[in-house]
Every structure is written in C-alpha cells, then in structure tokens.
C-alpha cells in the first residue's frame, strides 16, 4: 500500500512520518511513535479511552486518520504535564478524589475533562455527566470522576 508523508506535532515534538492512508491516529501514536500513554478500548468509537487533544479540542484518536492530523498539533496524556512532578489540575483532582482505579480509561477521561472545562469552566453535575458521556469507565461508577471534575473546576478558578 502506498504511504503518505505527514508531519504532526505530538506533545511539543514535531514528528515526520509516512503512513498508510488507512492508519488511525491512535495506532500511529502507539505503534510508530511509541506514545503508548494513549490507549485503545474499543473498535466502534464508543469508549473514549483514546481521547487526545487536536489543536486543543478533544477527539477520539481512533476515529481520526493519522493523515488528518497532518500539520496539526496533538496533545496526549503524556504531554499534558510532563514529568512526575508536573501535574495538570485535572490530574491532581483525579488523584485527590480517587477518580481512577485501573487507570485504563484515565488518559481519555483526563483529556475530555480538560476540553470540557475549557468550554465550560463551571459545569453542573449534569453538565459533567453529559459532557463525559463519550468516555466509559468500568471501575469507578463515575461518582468520584464527577467529584474530580468539580474539584478541578474549582482549582482552575471556574467554580464559585
């Protein structure tokens, strides 16, 4: 199959590569770049585990082709706040409120929350639940995820 050249900024680094046109962004990130912090949970764009930011807006990286990311900037869970001591308020909140257990949904949950709060810095519980409806978590029952988002909103100065 013919390959197409692409150039994508991932977590601040520019990657030039060649991909099959059918390659999904998430597979390119994981298999070609080794950015394995972003994960795959399904094959029907249902779970949101693969969520990344594309030019600052959340997308399911399993429903974007790598070629579509050409010329764009991707932020993954690994680039949101690099280094163990560097925490985005959303990451901090999830730890504080025990908003994760196995952690598999977590990268997607974090990235979706970052986007949600940038759109709506002070969401109600209902808006949080609706806003995250594309991200499935099997471990937490969402109770503490909702609390985490509220906590993050407060920390980021959104909530009154």
């Amino acid at each position, binding site marked *: 199959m013919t390959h197409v050249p692409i150039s994508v900024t991932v977590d601040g680094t520019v990657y030039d590569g060649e991909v099959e046109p059918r390659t999904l962004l998430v597979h390119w990130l994981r298999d070609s770049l080794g950015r*394995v912090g972003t994960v795959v949970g399904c*094959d029907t764009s249902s779970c949101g*585990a693969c969520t990344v930011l594309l030019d600052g807006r959340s997308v399911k990286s399993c429903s974007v082709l790598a070629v579509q990311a050409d010329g764009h900037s991707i932020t993954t*869970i690994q680039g949101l706040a690099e280094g*163990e001591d560097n925490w985005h308020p959303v990451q901090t909140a999830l730890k504080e409120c025990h908003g994760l257990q196995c952690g598999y949904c977590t990268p997607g949950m974090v990235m979706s929350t970052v986007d949600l709060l940038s759109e709506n810095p002070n969401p109600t519980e209902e808006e949080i639940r609706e806003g995250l409806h594309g991200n499935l978590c099997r471990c937490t029952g969402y109770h503490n995820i909702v609390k985490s988002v509220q906590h993050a909103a407060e920390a980021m100065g959104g909530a009154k």
Partner: protein
Amino acid sequence: MTEVLDTSTPMGRPLKRKEDARLLHGQTNWTDNIQLPGTVHMAILRSPMAHAKITKLDVSGALDQPHVVAAYGAAELGDLNGAIPCVWPVTDDIQMPPFPALAVDKVRHVGDAVAVVLATDKTAAYDALEAIDVDYEPLPAVVDMEAALQPGAPLVHDGEGAPMSNECYTFPLPGTGIPYDEAKAKADVVVKRRFVNQRIIAGYMEPRAVVASPMGMSNEMTVWSATQIPHILRVLLSLVTGLPENALRVVAPDVGGGFGGKLQLYREEILAVQLARHLGRPVKWTETRSEDMVASHHGRDQIQDIEICATKDGKLLGLKVDLLADMGAYLQIITPGIPLLGMFMFPAIYKMESYDFNCVGVFTNKTPTDAIRGAGRPEATFAIERIMDELAAELNMDPMKLREMNWIQHEEFPYATIAGLTYDTGNYEAATAKAMDLFGYDELRAEQEARRASGDPVQLGLGISTFTEMCGLAPSRTLGALKYVAGGWEHCTIRALPTGKIELITGTSPHGQGHETAWSQIAASILGVEVEDIEVVHGDTGRAPYGMDTYGSRSLAVGGQAIKKAAERLVEKAKVIAAHQLECSVDDLEFVDGAFRVKGDPEKAQPLAAVAFEAFSAHNLPDGVEPTLQAEATVDPDDFSYPHGTHLCAIEVDTETGKSTIRKYVCVDDVGVQVNPLIVEGQVHGGLAQGIAQALYEGVEYDEDGNLLTASFADYLIPSAADLPSFVTGTTVTPSTTNPLGTKGVGEAGAIASTPAVINAIVDALRPMGVTDVLMPASPQNVWRAIEDAKGGAA
C-alpha cells in the same frame, strides 16, 4: 458504635493512592505497550456461525500475503493445539468435552477459533485472514437452555463417548434442615417465581492481550498477559503446553480491570505460547473489542425457579431453588463451579428450617460463561431479595419488616446457616438503621402514596436489598471438598533492604484495586516505616513466585493476613539482631515507631533500617542468626468472611414510556475493618455501577440461530456517566473474626447487592398495576412490556 481512628499508623486512613501518578501521566505498562524485536502478530479467524461442521479449511492462501510468517488450522497445528482444562469438575459424572485452542472439525459458537495467522505487521495479519479458504456446513444451533434439554435437541457435543444430551451436570445439594415438603406443609403462604438472570460481559476497559517471548535456545519463556491470575496461569500453561513450569515466567503488568473476565486461561494464551515456542520468536496478540464480545467469557445466565414458604405472620420456613445454568459451548476453567458459589448464598441473611437446591448445567451454542464480579453470589442474592419482596407483597407486609423478622440478629453470630456455612459476624440492624436514615424511607413511602393516589404517570418505587456474601476465597480444604483442583492460600514475603527500603512481595495481582497503597499501609503500620518507603511487588511469577492471585474479594481477606504475619515475623527476627547490637535481652526490647528501644532507657534504640543494614553486612550477628532480614508467610484462611449491607433504591418509572430513572441510591456496607476507606468507597461505587448496569442496561443477546446481537460496544450498553446517579454511601464496621486484621472483602459487594435493589424498586413502583416482575435489563421496552402484560393479565 463509635469508631476510633488510630491516627498513629497509616492503617485505616484514606490515603491517596501510590499507583495514581504514573496512571495519570500515561506512564503505564499495559501488555499491548510491549514491543519486542522480531515480534509476530497473531490474528485469529473466528467462526461466523453458532454451530457448523468445518468442511474445508485451507490456510495456504494466507501464506502468500505480505508480511505473513505462518498460518495454521487445527490440522497444521497438530500436537501444538492445546486444550483448555476445566479445573472444577463439580460432580463425578460431569460431562467435560474437549475444548481445543483451535476448533477441530466443528465450531460450536460464534467466535470459536478456527485458524490463526502470524505476520510481522499487525494489520497484515488481520488482512491475511481473508485469504483463508474455509467452508462450513451449518448445523442447527441450541440457544435456549430449556430447548437444549429437550429430547432430540441438537447436541453441542456429540463426539465419540459423549452422552446424547446437552446436560453438563446436575448438582443437588443434599437438603439441609428439615425436608422441604415438611416445611411447605406447615406454611400458610407459598410464593413461587421464575427469575431470569441474564447473560452479561465483564466489560473491563483494557482489552485482553498477551505477549509470549521465548529466550534463545533454552526452554525459557516469558509471558505477559492482561490477566488477573499470573500464578494460576503459569501452572495451567505449563500443564497444557508441557513447558517446564520452572522455565515459564508469567507477568501481569498494568492490567486495566478484570471483574472476573480475566480470571481465565484463554485459548489465545495457549496459542501465543505454543507458537512463540515453535517459531522461536515473540508472538503478540491484542484483541479487538468486537473480538472480546465473542471470545472472552460471559457470565450469569441462569433461569431460576424459586419457591419460598412462610407462615401468615411472615416467618420463613423453607426455600427451594432450581437452577438452569448456561455453560455456553465449552467449559472454561471454572465454568461449572460458578452457580455453586451461589448455592451457599440463596438463604442469605435469613433464618429458615429448610433449604433445597438443585442446579443443572447446560451446554448451548454460545460463548462459554465463567466468573464475573460476584460469580454466583449476585445471581443468588438477586433471587432471594426479589422473592422476599414478592413474599412481602403476598403477605401485605412492609418488605423491610419482613426482612427484619427473619434475619440473623447481631447477637446470634457466629451463625450456622441452613446452607451449611458459618457466618462470622454481622450487624444487619445497625447497617439497616443507618441506611434507612440516609435514605429517608418514610418520606419516600409517603411520596409514593401521594403519587399513587393522584394517578401520577410517573410512579415512585422503593427497592431494598439486604445482602451478605461469602468472600475471601478460600479455605483450601473447603475448595477440595467442592472438587476445585487448587487451594486458596496466599503468600507474602517482606524484605528489609540494606538501604532502609522495604520490598513487599505479594501473591495477589491487582488490576485497579490499589494493592500497592493498601498493602503498604498494612505493612507500614506494623514495621513503623513510611508508606512511601515500601515497594509492593506483584503480578510477576519471576519476582513474586508464590500466589493465588486476585478474585473473589480475597486479596485483603486472605492476602492481608499473609502481610501481617510476614511483617510480624520480620520484626521478630530483627528484634533478635537488635538485642544483640544493643547488648540486652530480647525481652528488654520494645518495638515502637519503627525502632527497637530498651524498655526504661529509650535513648538506647536501634531503628529497623539499621538492623536491616546489620543483617546485610553480617559483621556482628548473634550466633545462629542468618544474614539478611526478610520474612515470609503463607496463610490458608480458617474460613470465609461475610461482609453485608443494606442497599436502598428509589426509582421513578414513567408508566407511559417505561423509562426508569434512579432518584436516590443509598447503601451502607459493612466490610469489616477498613485499611483504606477511600479505596473501599471506590470499590463500592464501581460495584454499584456494575450491578445497576445489569439491572437497567446490559444484556448479551443472541438471535435464535445463535448470532450475537450485542457484538460491540455500540450494541452492548455499558453505562456512561450520563446514565448513572451519584451514590450515597456509608459504612458500619463489624470486624471479621476469621482473620486477625478483622477485614472482610469489598470488591464484589456493590455488584452483588445493587441489582435486586433496582429491580425491586421498579416492581414496587408498578405493583398496583399488577406487575410482579420485569425482565432485565429493565429497559424502557422491557418495563413497558411488563406493564402491558399485566394489563393483559388483568383483562
């Protein structure tokens, strides 16, 4: 009861988890992350049919495809085609048909594995599946359990020597107490119901994955698997493949949830190991989610005929349970035993004079079933808690009052139940009082009355579930008596390293439960060190050689005991060394805040870290004391422990659309002594969500030909945040007496208790309309149908 929180040690404190930093930064080690040089990727051709003869299978076409290294059907695989053993043959005459890794001649469920392709590129491996030439001759499929048992039904297994029946086994529990008919003869009221506990999936978010990597010319093999059971897997893989166990290392790296679904030896694990050995290079397989839906075991799937009898005052006399349990097409490792774990729990928290149980395991042309969160106990709890509500309705009695009348009083523990168990401790009164208070039971009942009176199209229902469960699998002797092949002990080794750090090696294998944090808390409390100074090693048979892994809410109840014992033994050994160093007798020393101190002379002290260094340098050890400071313990539990709780659900049911909306969910769980309340609460939340999901949203569905209708996450409804409420949770603490930490289990509690609470609430809302049951999942369609059926029945 007042709980005194001892703040001097980390035990019992809601510490934030050690695990979280790397999980939150994407610094994880999922099996699918592993990329080894020379890897070949495995793709599996699966049957599109529920039951068929394979009339032609030619894999050679796949070999011509780009990047393909090898391709096999059962014929090409020959002796490498291992079979999955069932390690729980529940009766002497159980039918245990062969379960080969690749199907031989016949396929028996949609998703059955037919052929395998290995390619250096993952996508190429999947592409090459299309070049395999395969023909099937369809056979009639059996999907429904009752139809499967009819004479003349198509047989799932009809090989030579197979009995001409789809019955896998019949297990009667010899009646306990007085004969059921005698109890029934004394009864004023008899209520009989049929409940269907539908088939569900585990739904862990990380798909299964395995990497098998042989080491050069030696026999050695490392297997990484997204599994809950690295230790058991190692034994089984060795038995199945013939690889010497001592050359096999199994690692469960970060594992993204399990819920029983990764308590398994899967055919893909066997194939990966066999082919890695055969090809001499790493083999990797990661399932797609759609593959998971057909290839990973399902759970539940029982038809329950339940009869309960009581006096007119509501005193329970007897319970009779007849189960049909769907095994699916093959027996996975503990498929037949799952309903029997429930067998003990049908009588639940109630006193009665008679209990009769019978279970028939049935083969059908569907994916095999096995453990899913609760494994047998949710099914049992559902049945008893549902029928208690039906009995209350029959007696025209408040359902909580009926329960109170019949449950074991707190002063009656330990209590020998009619099912033959001895419940250690419990206080159903306390948990219920607290839950009722948080719920506002009386106000909600008043609102219900008002809505009924005004004919509100949105009716309110209140559902109760007062549950208990047995956890802490398990006393090995009990397992032996139940014909389970292995034991139920747990192991811990603790090493005090010369630099002052502690290595805690556990045989449990967490996949979200926070063992790294909780185990550190237990050990730190005994060793007087900082939680941060303890490293918990788990899930790797190379570094943690002994263990029985994580399932059945056993890790703390059993593994916790091993940690405590190992830590205490370590202190004992250290004390001898410290006494020698401090030139005093062992009896003169006390161990306080991580240091040995001479009683009455606190200045003379030696911290544990210093002792560890002395044990390492070994320059000045007392005679007869061996260098290094470590201790180990392997603990077989004396008995199970029995957490319990009271769950209350208020639900609004729109009688026009059938839509149910949870208004309030309250639960008070008693899981004994808590090591980390934050983690306990999280486990309860997750369990609630999973149990509520079974009640309202989830269900595996097949059509009559055995085609899976819920074949992806687009069709199988795992609830999102938008589908669930927040929960009101509380706890009471009644310490267990079957282990020295006083802990019980919490991993399954929420999932066991919540399903009947929700369905009881829906039926309660609709009872004035004549509704006495609603099929799960209680989707708007199913609720609407129940209402229509009731109308029809009344007409």
